[in-house]
């Protein structure tokens, strides 16, 4: 296992380096600058700003300077949010997305697996059709439709939950964003679980278990659930990263200070350093979560060993 982790760490270094290099140059070659505005700044003023942020230096020199700073853990000052460094912004925003994301993820996983299992066991009954068509609705209804509907019903209509805000993550502010974010993943997890469970239940070793006269619930919990979870576990990595980084819609609608909104705004504002900082962070998250998923897979599937 130690060897496996070490291998993953060594593999991650060139991946990150490529990621940093490609996104650095892509960002610099995108039209527009962090400081362009409706009324174009006089050349002298622009020159002062470029000098202050080192943008007057050759691009390659900017790149090496940036890389040196990143290696020391310094992601630089934000070009747009000038009172903050990228480190400060990311440190403040990540826990927000992570907290909402973790709640949404757990909710989606538990509900999704439960719904999927029930549907598989009651295959081709009205319950199965009902659950699966509802989950289809969950998949096709994007969060930018679902979230305003939730707000309309539970905030404006019933007044049960606030329509937005974070307030350091107090529970009542989290209910609607978590629901809005989780629904799509509940549905996806349910469909994956159902398919995989049906396949597992039809496999030879389950038939053997049945022939041995074991009770059906014992077979499902003891023998079927673990192998049926393989595709679910594989999907967990991308789902978690997707929930955190794809949270921009929910964050915008509910006015949450998370990383998704920060990332999208940074790209629109051409906030070079902030875009880079979050890109590196997301890259790291992807690598870490894929590694965790691989370890989980090894635990679930005896055929995989590192």
């Amino acid at each position, binding site marked *: 296992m130690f060897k496996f982790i070490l291998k993953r760490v060594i593999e991650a270094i060139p991946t990150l380096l490529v990621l940093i290099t490609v996104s650095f140059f892509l960002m610099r070659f995108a039209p527009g600058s962090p400081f362009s505005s*409706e009324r174009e700044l006089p050349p002298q003023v622009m020159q002062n*700003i470029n000098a202050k942020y080192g943008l007057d230096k050759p691009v390659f020199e900017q790149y090496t300077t940036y890389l040196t700073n990143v290696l020391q853990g310094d992601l630089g000052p934000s070009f747009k949010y000038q009172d903050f460094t990228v480190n400060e912004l990311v440190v403040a925003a990540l826990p927000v997305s992570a907290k909402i994301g973790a709640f949404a993820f757990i909710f989606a996983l538990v509900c999704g697996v439960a719904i999927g299992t029930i549907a598989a066991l009651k295959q081709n009954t009205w319950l199965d059709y009902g659950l699966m068509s509802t989950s289809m609705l969950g998949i096709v209804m994007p969060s930018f439709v679902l979230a305003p509907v939730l707000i309309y019903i539970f*905030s404006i209509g019933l007044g049960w939950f606030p*329509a937005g805000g974070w307030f350091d993550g107090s529970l009542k502010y989290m209910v609607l964003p978590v629901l809005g974010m989780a629904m799509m993943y509940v549905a996806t997890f349910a469909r994956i679980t159902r398919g995989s469970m049906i396949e597992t239940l039809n496999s030879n070793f389950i038939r053997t278990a049945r022939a041995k006269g074991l009770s059906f619930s014992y077979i499902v919990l003891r023998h079927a659930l673990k192998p049926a979870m393989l595709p679910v576990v594989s999907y967990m990595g991308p789902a978690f990263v997707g929930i955190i980084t794809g949270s921009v819609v929910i964050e915008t609608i509910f006015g949450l200070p998370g990383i998704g909104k920060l990332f999208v705004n940074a790209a629109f504002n051409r906030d070079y350093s902030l875009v880079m900082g979050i890109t590196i962070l997301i890259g790291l998250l992807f690598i870490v979560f894929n590694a965790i998923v691989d370890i989980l897979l090894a635990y679930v599937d005896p055929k995989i060993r590192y």
Partner: protein
Amino acid sequence: MNKNKITKALLVSLGLTFSATSFNAIAADVPAGTKLAAKQELVKGNGSEVASIDPHKTQGVPESNVILDLLEGLVTQDAEGNTIPGVAESWETTDNKTFTFHLRKNAKWSNGDPVTAHDFVYSFQRAVDPATASPYSWYLDMTTMLNASDIIAGKKDKSTLGVKAIDDYTFEVKLATPVPYFVMMMGHTTMMPVHQATVEKYGEQWTKPENFVGNGAFVMSKWVVNERIEMTPNKYYWDNDKTVLTKVTYLPLENYVAEMNRFLAGEIDMTYDVPNEHFKRLKKEHAESLAIKGDLCTYYYSLNTHKPPFDDLRVRKAVSYAVDRDVIAKFLLGKGEKPAYGLTPEIVAHFDPVLPPYAKLTQKERNAEAKKLLEEAGYNAANPLKFSLLYNTSENHKKLAVAIGSMWKKTLGVEVTLENQEWKTYLETKNQGNFQAARASWCGDYNEASTFTSLMEGNNTTGGVHYKSAEYDKLTEQAILSTSEEERQKLYYAQEALLAKDMPIIPIYQYVKARLLNPHVGGYAHHNAEDKNYSKNMYIIAD
């Protein structure tokens, strides 16, 4: 005190007198008989997240809204938009070139330090210092403050700026040319003072809530980027006794539908804007909560006079005449916007231009004239005029572009290609002149026509560079040197007339500022054209 007659006339016409005692009414003035709510907390929607609260690093409206509560300049504004004393109790000038401001002795920073003339010397020098790299440093150049231009260009030291502390409470500014509206320009965010010791001690970190020292009516107590900024009253503020609110919260909400929903859920008292597509419904269902006022902005299409087909005056005129501005203002927008026939909106103080000849024609007559001009320029059904119209990606701009495109098609048979680009890409394309026609707009920095007319000067890289008219620039020079208010206005009118004659832009409509305002909010500046809503003037009425 030998006050200049023109300045006096200007200030008197702005409803001012020079005695300090008559300025008492600048904090929240609650009308007699108003019952105040027990909880005096106000929540304002503020568009996007602020780029900074350092007045020398910002250029946007959301930033300005926040800063005006945290810092106070020499002058401020009342609810009607008149310039009134801020830190300066009074001022005088003999020639509109040297201004002497007398600061009030009870003005204090939020740490108890007195606000002195030295603070303004430091702050103005900091604004033009190349090391500060203020995006709005050009604003000081625009006031013609002595040596500002050379300091920004790095040719002179910042200590040579035309500012001087004669004593602790007397501040003098020297300009290169007379600017009669100079005092009014001092209300801009860039002209706010900063606390030298704090800035020097904390460097870039001085704006953090725990370090921040300001001289405005409020101090920042909490700042969560992309969520909210909270403020509480500054107990050292010289007029703090009149501040009614105990807490002000600014929420950065870019999505106006989300903002509207939070207003409807009772979480926001005052929104930044209203989503256009919901306006009609809101007007029907929440008429009591809609606050609409004129805004100091103009929406227009810029025509590139250096490129075909718009290097031909006849073509520029034809496409301008064929735009039915009444239909756009009344039916497409419908919030109370007015058709525009000039760059400077009518709401600008003392600005009352004669409408250009084409504005006085009916749309039918204009269309006929447009057809005639286009035919003269050699375009007809066999050889239709073709060009592309650039705009930044937005539903509202698209709606307008489609409507105007179809007006052109219907009246003139023009084939227009609509080209939308994301904001920063659009800015680059436009600023580099890679366009034929492009959407644009401008909102004034101060309430005087020059904030608009300067846009079309030949050296202005945003507007005038695509126009470059020696005649127009000459009028600007004359206006700057003019010492008579009346004469200056006439020169502005002449500039507008020239724009109508040369048609480098198609003025389309004059903005209104529409927002949702909870009826329990008192002290809202219903008639402030610059939309400056100082929280110190606001209060919550008991339901």
